[in-house]
């Protein structure tokens, strides 16, 4: 009896952890493991997978010119601007909103948060009107009336303009969960701390942000950074939704996720797509490591 009790004492936490562990294994761990395993095979979803070793990875970095010439530079451009840019934007907006009284704050928070809730389809309908390639598109119409262009610019289907527009829309919709977390964090900072800081010689709002706000909401900032990273690398097919085609015109808006889509669900080269997803996973992992290094609590 006693031994059973002792056993229960020693292992009961496993029982309590069980629900989480089961679901985590089923829905996250296993798919990742399967993806990694799949990435070592050639698999077209009809015949059974054939083991090919590292061939898929070698192909990605040596034979896939589209990946090296378009997808990788595009992803780097998009991630470098939308990641930090969206992150800074959401921090600044969260800070500005936090200064407001309750009701406008709530309303504005919802307004700013809503773009990230919309799916890419909704995005493309909204922005499709603005950037429409005919004379009736808002932007074209405005440029016409200003006399800046002579013929309509096909904003969404031209290789020169698609990526900048994607970046713009990406920034616009970057006020996501990270933004909400930071807003909550800023609102939670004890007002007395600011007063104390002013007594200690803080002179303006910028110093206030730098010396009080940021150190106090560091955990939320870390969360926001990770979310921003994951979102930018995984942004689900913004370019495809805007231009209406996969691959995007001249691969101008092709990000890694679109490339995966292209190989996985248009060409049915599942093994290759899985290898791409592992590459993407590695990127995100390295980046989030870097984010941890930047924001971790050193004290």
């Amino acid at each position, binding site marked *: 009896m006693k031994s059973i009790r002792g056993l229960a004492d020693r292992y009961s936490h496993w029982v309590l952890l069980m629900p989480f562990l089961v679901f985590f294994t089923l829905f996250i761990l296993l798919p990742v493991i399967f993806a990694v395993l799949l990435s070592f095979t050639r698999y077209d979803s009809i015949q059974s997978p054939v083991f090919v070793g590292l061939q898929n990875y*070698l192909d990605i970095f*040596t034979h896939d*010119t589209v990946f090296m*010439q378009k997808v990788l*530079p595009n992803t*780097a451009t998009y991630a470098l601007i939308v990641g930090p840019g969206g992150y800074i934007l959401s921090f600044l907006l969260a800070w500005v909103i936090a200064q407001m009284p309750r009701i406008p704050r709530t309303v504005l928070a919802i307004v700013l948060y809503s773009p990230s809730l919309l799916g890419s389809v909704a995005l493309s309908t909204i922005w499709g009107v603005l950037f429409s390639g005919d004379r009736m598109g808002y932007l074209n119409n405005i440029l016409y009336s200003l*006399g800046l262009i*002579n013929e309509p610019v096909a904003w969404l289907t031209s290789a020169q303009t698609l990526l900048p527009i994607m970046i713009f829309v990406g920034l616009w919709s970057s006020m996501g969960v990270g933004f909400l977390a930071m807003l909550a964090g800023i609102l939670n900072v004890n007002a007395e701390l600011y007063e104390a800081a002013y007594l200690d010689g803080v002179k303006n709002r*910028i110093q206030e942000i730098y010396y009080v706000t940021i150190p106090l909401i560091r955990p939320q900032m870390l969360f926001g950074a990770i979310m921003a990273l994951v979102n930018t690398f995984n942004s689900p097919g913004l370019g495809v939704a805007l231009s209406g085609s996969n691959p995007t015109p001249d691969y101008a808006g092709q990000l890694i996720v679109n490339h995966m889509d292209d190989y996985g669900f248009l060409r049915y080269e599942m093994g290759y797509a899985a290898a791409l997803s592992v590459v993407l996973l590695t990127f995100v992992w390295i980046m989030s490591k870097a984010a941890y290094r930047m924001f971790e609590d050193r004290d």
Partner: protein
Amino acid sequence: MFTAKRLFIMPICAILLACLAVNTAAARIPQTGNSTSITYTLSSDGSWLRTQDAYLPGEILFQDDPLWQPEDVYVYGNCLYIAAAGNGYVVAYDLDTRKTRIYGEGTLNTPTGIYVTGRQELYVADSGFSKVFVFDAEGKLLSEYDRPDEMTFGAQAQFKPKKLVVDESGVMSIVSEGSYDGVIQLGAEGEFLGYFGYNSVPMTLLELLQDRFFTEEQKKQLFNRIPLTFYNLASDPDGIIYTITQSAVGNAIKKHNISGVNIIKHQMIDEKNFTDIAVGPTGQIYAVTQTGLIFEYDNDGNLLFSFGGQAISSERSGLLTIASGIAVDDEYNLYVLDKERGLVHTYVPTAFANLAHEAINEYRQGSYTSSRDKLNMLLMLAGNARFIYYYLGKNELQLRNHQAAAVFFRQAGDRSGYSEAFWEIRNDVINAVLPWMFAVFLATVLFNLVRRLWKGKQAAHQGTRFLVKSRILSDLMFGFNVLRHPIDSFYEVKTGARGSIWSAVILYLLAFGAFAFDYLGRGFAYSLRTTENTSPLYVILLFFLPVALFIICSYMVSELHDGKGWFMTVFIGMSYALVPWICFLPAVTVMTHVLALNESFLITFSSLLVYAWTTVLVILAIREIHEYELHQVLGNIMLTFFMMVVVIFAFSIIGMFWDKAIEIASSITREVKYRVGH
């Protein structure tokens, strides 16, 4: 080995070409003697290069019976059609039988433009009658088209057809005098289809603002801003329309796609006074200026040859008085109208020009190897010509000889082509190295794992601090401190605890080194500047002049605005502000050697980062050293820039005065000497 082979091939080529030249000359137009003008092409650095004769002057037609003010010429089969505007008819001259035939005598007034369709119908634009006439092969008048009366044509629009081309379905594209809206297109029934193509009015910022804010009455008082009109046009066998616009330097020639947009995007080497344009059998573009210069371009508007010229005091075959029209037949013979003398000068392509045409044509058709061989032959004949290198590069790229392609593109000054070839070379290197990198990566991971298992968790790594004895070295090392804790560091500089004049001088020199390396040492894909084509003094001035001016002006402005810093501290502080520049700009420059143009974003982004960081440090330095608030810093910087402009202005005025003073002094001394001498 290569040169020896060249020396051997040279004479053979020359003989071969000489034989070829005789053969082609016998074909249609007898060639008469030597060239009367020099043929130029572009050399690899973009300057004019004298090269082999591309065309030799041939027979002069209508010498016995000159035409009166001929305006346009067109070749169809072996028949030369000439719009003799002064005579009031069109002449058809059979090049084989040498017989002439006259169209539209009595019907036409001043025919200025002609076109012959595949059904041998002759279209004539008559600017005297303001009509378009159509004749059949026998000279019978088939139809005539008047000013279209559709609303869309425009109530005020004039219809004075000058030149025209007609496509297979009978759609006429007409250049009408004084028509700013573009080329007029009429359907086969004479109905107005629309305007095609356009010239835009380049607007200055001032004009844009005027457009926004002026009232209608104010606008009326301004000059009318109207676009340049098209002067002439031509079409190629595929129906693509080419136009010329006078005085539009850089894009005088336009190649229009079906919606009228110019598809030659780059700036062309051209002239202000082109009068006519013709398209060769494989898409070469020929244009002639009023002064008789003939330009030949390839299909994409890259200059191949330029030759010909004006006959100033004497008549010579191949030199023109006033050129008004050019046509080319399917053997690349050129026919150029001399309006003043009423003659047709002919030009016969040499074997050299034919070789160039064949090489380019073979490239376009995909026979890369044979195109490359021909181009190599051309290279021996023509020397350092840009177009040869350009096409050699393109051929080698297609043949996947990327190293050679990169070399040729470099010589042709083509950065995008070079970048493409470079990407392939880099890809090969990556392919070769990747397995090793993989192995090394795995090995390190394994090694770390084993070490960790073996030793367990080690104590945290203790940073070792170097104790630097020498003051100047420690001052230089302090630069790294600036990167991490800028505000504290500038405070230390201000108190005089850190930095000395010598450390600052060294930092400025290092910054100059970084600047010069970036300015001159970028990879070819990112910059055409090399140490050969840039003067060192220019680079030195480009860096030190603004930097010195900024420091001095900033200090002077701060003196007036109760800044607390000494000149020495400003000098030292600014040198520390340049530390990110010194540390990271060279890295960016090195990156330009590794990255191709499609990754250029990384270059712009990282250099932007370096500049932004440096700017922030400059702002912080001013703030700390003078104990300023932020708005005072910004005010200081604004005033500094203003003062820099004033100083530059003042110095240039003094410089001009000085020049004048010297000039006056020297002329007085000359005068005195002259008087004394007499």
